[in-house]
């Protein structure tokens, strides 16, 4: 019985963790490849959430459009950031971070102006609003759908990074961008493509999380903070590291909230401190430097 009590929160935590992984993967790759610490990343996630919440009206086509629009808007946002930060290349991380922070402030303001100060949730098709029964537990269909889609997106991300030339170029750029130029590929194009994909993933993560978490004025900051925690714990630039860290954050958060509500706010920061203290730069996928 005791184990059972943790089952639902763990499944929730894994789903949440996968969403965080989708959100954070782009952030970590954009930093690893082009050195852009994108502080507007949370704003892209929130924008995806708002667009999805506003677009989905309870029908399947509107739901599909909501997800697609969120991803497209995220990619466009990533493109704008790529263009804006390209001019600052070579001036260090701080200039780029400041610029993206400014974009985040303006974007956040714009979002509350357009969508108002309330927390929004999308209207979903009736099938998704119910629950299913599995192994004696009732589980909301929308969460299950989010879990399945998140697994698919993570799997697709893996395939792209490891089985396509574009993915190899991205990993090579994270490792040594000068040598990517040396084989005739302009690394700045890789940077721009990465920022656009990161934006699309951020928008997608925002859209996928709204049925569960809703989207409001605090979404951007929370999403950015969690993404940054994941990127740092997972090792800057490491996608497998980010995935592991995101799953850990998702499960710690969810279990914490259900099991130790009074400790929950400190659990995550505590766990992060422990990870940073014990991590010996050897998370999966990180080259022994």
């Amino acid at each position, binding site marked *: 019985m005791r184990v059972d009590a943790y089952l639902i929160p763990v499944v929730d935590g894994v789903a949440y963790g996968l969403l965080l992984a989708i959100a954070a993967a782009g952030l970590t790759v954009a930093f690893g490849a082009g050195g852009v610490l994108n502080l507007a990343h949370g704003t892209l996630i929130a924008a995806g959430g708002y667009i999805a919440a506003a677009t989905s009206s309870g029908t399947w086509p509107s739901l599909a459009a909501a997800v697609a629009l969120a991803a497209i808007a995220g990619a466009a946002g990533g493109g704008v950031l790529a263009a804006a930060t390209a001019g600052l290349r070579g001036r260090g991380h701080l200039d780029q971070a400041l610029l993206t922070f400014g974009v985040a402030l303006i974007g956040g303001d714009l979002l509350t102006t357009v969508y108002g100060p309330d927390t929004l949730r999308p209207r979903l098709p009736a099938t998704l609003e119910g629950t299913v029964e599995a192994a004696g537990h009732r589980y909301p269909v929308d969460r299950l759908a989010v879990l399945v889609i998140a697994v698919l997106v993570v799997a697709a991300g893996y395939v792209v990074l490891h089985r396509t030339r574009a993915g190899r170029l991205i990993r090579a750029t994270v490792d040594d961008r000068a040598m990517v*130029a040396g084989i005739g590929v302009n690394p700045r194009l890789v940077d721009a493509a990465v920022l656009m994909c990161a934006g699309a993933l951020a928008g997608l993560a925002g859209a996928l999380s709204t049925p569960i978490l809703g989207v409001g004025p605090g979404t951007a900051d929370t999403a950015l903070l969690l993404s940054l925690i994941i990127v740092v714990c997972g090792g800057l630039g490491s996608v497998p590291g980010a995935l592991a860290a995101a799953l850990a954050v998702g499960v710690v958060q969810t279990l914490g909230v259900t099991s130790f509500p009074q400790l929950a706010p400190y659990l995550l920061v505590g766990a992060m401190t422990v990870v940073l203290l014990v991590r010996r730069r050897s998370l999966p996928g990180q080259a022994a430097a």
Partner: protein
Amino acid sequence: MLQVSDLTVGYHRDDAVLREVCLDLTAVAVHAIVGPNGAGKSTLLHTLAGHLRPTAGTVWCEGRDVTRWRPHQAARTGVALAPQGRRLWPSLTVAEHLTVTRPARHRPGSTFSVDELLEVFPALAGRLHHHGHQLSGGEQQMLTIARALHTAPRLLLADEPTEGLAPTVARQVTAVLQQLPQRGATVLVTLPHVRAAAALTDTVHVLTTGHLSHPVTASDGQAERLLRDHLTLTNPHAE
């Protein structure tokens, strides 16, 4: 393929590492540069590959001024750098190093297929799924050269390609470089001493603290003399 005139390059504003270097790489042949540590050999090769901006002078490529080209433009034109220190991608496997590079089409160049490269470097064939950082030093060196060759270079810039290699492997690498001109590619190779250069080509340039000599004959002792003169000039107590 390239002509270099009065090239001055430095890492700091008023501290040139190379001074008014002239070099003619028109002949499709193996050109060698020898010089002591710190003379600027790597600096010259990195400049020709577009990784460093010269402060003065010109680099010509078939009549075009390419002094300020960027590395990917140099690579697309057919200039491939096999850098000293290997510079592989740690998270890519050997196979991925070779498949991420694409031989440039629509221009002449010495094309090598992956199969052909594995034939040239059989040691790599057994390591296809190992990552860049899991290779031995010699295997890394082979992969560095194989990666450069897979871009179908017209000019291969090989920076100390035999450094740290066992003699048999070094001979193998030397043999590959030697055959490149027959396949239409020019080679500019830096080597630690005249003897190694003489095994590859008859004309070498001597680079001493930023000054590049005219091509001299490797076998008749001229190059050795230049190096020795430089040593006694800069360090009168050297024997």
